[in-house]
């Protein structure tokens, strides 16, 4: 199944010089790693957070490494990156890393350097924070900037929300860490979040019948539909597809393999907000996020309606949760009735799951809350 590196090169547009790639794979991080981290690799004892955005890890050897974490826009121009490098060289030890959430981390073994690092970052417009019980950077996807199937933008949504959440990024005032994700189509590359802001299509695809025959492998498209709503059909004498709109759950899965099945439109592409997703295994098992509200307008450039709801949910959590409770655990304790009460959101028939395994989401007990 796997092939040698040179046996089957795909057709190339630039014929003259064919450089054979070096299949070096994943680079060894130690060549870039801070020497104190290399020295104490796998031998760390404990850590502290001297202030928001700063970590102090102490090795069993007694060595220390300080981390200063700052937010970035992820989609960075080379000027931004070079600025970050300048700070690493001038105020830091020249070693950085990026976190799972696109924050940059400056590593230094010298505590004295921390204040200057913070100052330089702040001056250059990079907020220092994102550690401990803060709202960290939002999981960022591609959207209109790059993707071929987006219902909205990602960078703009993230920027708008992080502007609002800036204070919560630079403080550690939440009950536990807050992980927000966005996704610019229902595929949802951003994954599960304490709060997730995802595109939700609200209408079945409109089919551009003229294009189907040329662009789409019809059996493949039919196979992609999770509810078997797509049938091959002849339309205007041409082979096309048709959708049973009663069955269609507006998921958009037919769109990537068959772009003439236009799922997006300025009117019907909406945003939904989900809550209580969690990846960690701390206390409760990892869980999926659950629908809070749907049908929010897709309103660039700043999506104020989304901002408003995120704020409501976040501050209800902040006010109500006990220390160490993640969003979902807070809701689990106080109950969904109170969640809807405290956030002022509506509970509708659409909140009742109808997908495979829906029964497992139902209350099959006398446990009720008032």
């Amino acid at each position, binding site marked *: 199944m796997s092939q040698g590196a040179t046996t089957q090169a795909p057709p190339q547009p630039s014929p003259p010089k064919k450089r054979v790639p070096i299949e070096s794979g994943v680079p060894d991080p130690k060549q870039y790693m801070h020497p104190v981290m290399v020295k104490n690799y796998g031998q760390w004892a404990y850590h502290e957070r001297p202030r928001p955005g700063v970590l102090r890890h102490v090795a069993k050897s007694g060595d220390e490494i300080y981390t200063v974490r700052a937010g970035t826009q992820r989609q960075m121009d080379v000027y931004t990156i070079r600025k970050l490098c300048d700070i690493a060289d001038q105020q830091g030890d020249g070693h950085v890393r990026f976190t799972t959430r696109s924050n940059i981390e400056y590593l230094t073994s010298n505590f004295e350097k921390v204040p200057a690092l913070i100052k330089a970052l702040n001056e250059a417009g990079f907020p220092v924070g994102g550690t401990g019980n803060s709202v960290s950077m939002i999981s960022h996807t591609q959207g209109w900037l790059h993707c071929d199937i987006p219902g909205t933008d990602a960078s703009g949504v993230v920027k708008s929300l992080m502007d609002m959440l800036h204070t919560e990024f630079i403080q550690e005032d939440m009950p536990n860490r807050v992980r927000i994700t966005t996704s610019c189509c229902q595929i949802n590359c951003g994954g599960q979040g304490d709060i997730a802001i995802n595109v939700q299509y609200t209408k079945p695809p409109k089919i551009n019948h003229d294009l189907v025959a040329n662009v789409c492998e019809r059996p493949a498209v039919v196979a992609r539909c*999770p*509810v078997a709503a797509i049938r091959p059909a002849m339309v205007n004498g041409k082979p096309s597809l048709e959708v049973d709109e009663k069955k269609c759950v507006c998921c958009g899965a037919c769109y990537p393999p068959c772009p003439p099945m236009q799922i997006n439109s300025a009117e019907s592409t909406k945003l939904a907000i989900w809550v209580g997703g969690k990846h960690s295994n701390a206390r409760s098992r990892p869980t999926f996020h*659950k629908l809070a509200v749907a049908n929010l307008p897709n309103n660039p450039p700043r999506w104020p309606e989304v901002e408003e709801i995120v704020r409501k949910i976040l501050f209800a959590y902040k006010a109500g949760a006990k220390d160490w409770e993640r969003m979902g655990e807070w809701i689990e304790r106080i109950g969904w009735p109170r969640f809807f009460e405290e956030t002022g959101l509506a509970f509708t028939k659409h*909140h009742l799951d109808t997908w495979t395994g*829906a029964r497992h989401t139902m*209350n099959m007990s006398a*446990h009720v809350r008032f």
Partner: protein
Amino acid sequence: MVDDVKQDGVGRVGAVFDKRATPRLDELESGPWPSFVTGLKRLRDSGDKPYAEYVNDLLGQLEHSYTERLGFWKGGTVSVFGYGGGIIPRFSEVSEKFPKSKEFHTLRVMPPAGFHYTSDVLRKMCDIWERHGSGLIAFHGQSGDIMFQGTTTDGCQKAFDELNEIGFDLGGAGPALRTSMSCVGHARCEMSMYDEPRAHREILNENVSEIHRPALPYKFKFKFSGCANDCVNAIHRADFAVIGTWRDDIKINQDEVKAYVADVGRKYTIDHVVAMCPTRAVSLNDDNTLEIDNKSCVRCMHCINVMHKALAPGDDRGVSVLIGGKRSLKVGDLMGTMVVPFMKLETDEDYAKLREFARSCIDFFAENALEHERIGETLDRIGLPAFLGALGIEPDPNMVRHPRTSSYVRTDDFTDEAEKYFERKGLNADGSAKEAAE
């Protein structure tokens, strides 16, 4: 009919017969627990009773089962005049060997709600069953019936007529409304949140025809428990489970709390009350008083069960209704699903409402279930939103463990639905509170 001379009940009085050898069953006579074999033998040995020889053959057939490790009864059709159900007919497949007990039908008879009896009425039942049956009665079957076990077709009618005269009626069998159960509740239990026997009787007796004339797609069971301890296993074992609950705060007697903590210790209290509350709603203060976050409490009963002198349910009482519990045929076991989180149950009107709702569920079931489909399966098949829609129930977050995790749903009318919700809650269309009017 077992015989044709001096026939009385299931057999002849004073019949002379050889006792069947029952070496295997005999082994079930030893040991401290009351023995059904000893009981059956007592019947067999009642030469003055019509059922002696009948039970002798029954013992013979049962011993045969113990030897062959197989059952030997088959079904059939038997009923009493005017009714289509309530009898479980049994015909022997080995009647050539055990001819006397070739028919061994059972009458399912509905008990008084809560299973209360006087010795007097029990004796009357015994007398009737001595005359017309085997003398073997079960208190009670798993659905709550008194099971008068073992008689002929003719015996069924006679026994029923006499039982009916002393105020008892047949229970359910087949695709029908079934006999119901309610816990001891109001009669004796301090946890009881509504009048279980009343709810039980009103609903069943209003629909008694559905019991007696099987015409539903499949069986339909009600069960009534006074609180979430669910002493009649309603949530799993009833299509329609009524469970008592309350809306206001748990009542705390802090002196009794302190007495409890003084008695068992802090660590014990923490590990067994605080840490066992499913929603961490209980907290023990440093002064040995208890704090309960009542909005988080799910009315599970645990802390009240443990500290029942110190804690008690609130006063704003009523019931929850769960739909669709059943055992495993076809789809696997189902627990009931919460469809009515709270319904006040105090006044006559409250009870009338519950009866109405019960009736509407039976009607829905009759009209929508496929053949041999329990209502829980119907609910799964059409989905909870459609089910609620059909019954005119508004969605409520108490119906779910959590809202949907799947984005595969068409939500274009979400905003309309949300507005309906806010209207129901008396809020503005954006969920904000209305300004106090006038």
